[in-house]
């Protein structure tokens, strides 16, 4: 039993070294800044309003950066030994595989639909109709 506790003591001692209030505050400020950045895509100042793909790519990049900051510093993974890769990389790969496997049946589900279903499912033209019907009222509500 003593053989097993020895490495833990070492880890605990190691953990004391890497903390530090300054580091956490810096990560916190970075997270706040990045949240403001993703919120920026919603603001009127965002230049690519007519190209939503730019905003999506930007927000995913921001989210991944935020996630990395939380995992590396708040969850202390930066200072952990190599076991971290054994747990995180296969889990992340499984997650990506799952999404890819969903694409043919779920993502492309509207390529071929039954007539029955096509009759009742929403179409982009429905949204246009609704926007046109509401044009006057929405407009007047802003004045």
């Amino acid at each position, binding site marked *: 039993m003593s053989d097993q506790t020895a490495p833990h003591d070492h880890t605990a001692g190691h953990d004391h070294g890497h903390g530090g209030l300054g580091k956490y505050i810096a990560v916190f400020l970075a997270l706040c800044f990045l949240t403001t950045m993703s919120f920026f895509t919603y603001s009127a100042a965002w230049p690519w309003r007519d190209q939503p793909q730019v905003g999506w790519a930007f927000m995913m990049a921001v989210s991944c950066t935020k996630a990395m900051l939380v995992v590396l510093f708040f*969850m202390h993974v930066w200072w952990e030994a190599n076991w971290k890769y054994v747990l995180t990389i296969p889990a992340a790969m499984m997650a990506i595989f799952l999404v890819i496997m969903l694409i043919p049946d779920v993502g*492309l589900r509207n390529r071929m639909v039954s007539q029955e279903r096509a009759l009742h499912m929403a179409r982009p033209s429905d949204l246009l109709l609704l926007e046109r019907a*509401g044009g006057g009222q929405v407009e007047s509500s*802003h004045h």
Partner: protein
Amino acid sequence: MSSPALSVPHDHGHHDDGHHDDGHHGHLKLQYQPGLPLSRGKLIMWLFLSTEIMFFAALLGSYIVLRFGAAVWPKPHHVHLSEPIGAFNTFVLICSSVTVVLALEAARANKTGLAKIWMLATLLLGSLFLGVKGYEYQAKFSHGIYPWAPHGLIHERPDLYYGSAVRARLEEPAIIDRLKTLDETPADQLTEEQVSARAALQQVRALVIDPNQQAFEMAVVADQIMPLPAEGPGGDGHGGHAQGINDVFPWLRLPILIPGGNMWASTYFLLTGFHAIHVIVGLIVFAVLLGYTLGPKNAGMIENAGLYWHFVDLVWIFLFPVLYLF
């Protein structure tokens, strides 16, 4: 457990230099294997978190695939999502992640009182997050946006089925009585909003009775019942949108039209619901931890609870842009 048994031959004087002790044993190259350099509790928490990664990746991945595979998907404002509220909740969770880290640092430094304050702050911030989430859910429910049929009022298309659903609601005995009372109320006893909503309701009643309904007329009906707010920061989806009949007369609960709204509601409530359940579990853990002395002896427990909480924060980091800004 087998590791100490393997290391028995080396224990006689060569315990410290495990890598260079093969001289006495010929070809046998055994070395001491300490296992993973982390405590059992932390190992189990990380194993649990790796299953959680897959769980939420499945939910989030399904959402993204469903969303981009859909013919129509509602804009955040169409479903009364408010980006500033989402951003505020993101900020609250980030703050709570910091406080739990500070609680751990204080506990390791044997500042038990300070650790308890940070832990309490985490608990309060988590509760604030849940409160805001509840407020947001209420905004959906009050507009008839539910993930299931008996309460949900969402229809997908401005077609005959929608028109007949509105008519059916208007012909319910209880509604007929209230409409009669409303019709007979003198205009000076109503607010300006109620008068104009009553006029809009008259138009809706005339349109849904007409047997030659066209899609555009049904879109007009839907717009009178619950207008879809304009996009962008100006046309905020929260309170600032044009008032519909359902907003002025909540007892009417007329069917509403949100193209793609049913799938949106299912995925939104599933994702945020599972996240909220995780937040609640985290809050229970923090409440239990507050009963302990938060010193170096219990730092392991705080660390494990913190790992879980950071993961909950991590999930929200992805949920916020995907649900509110995409």
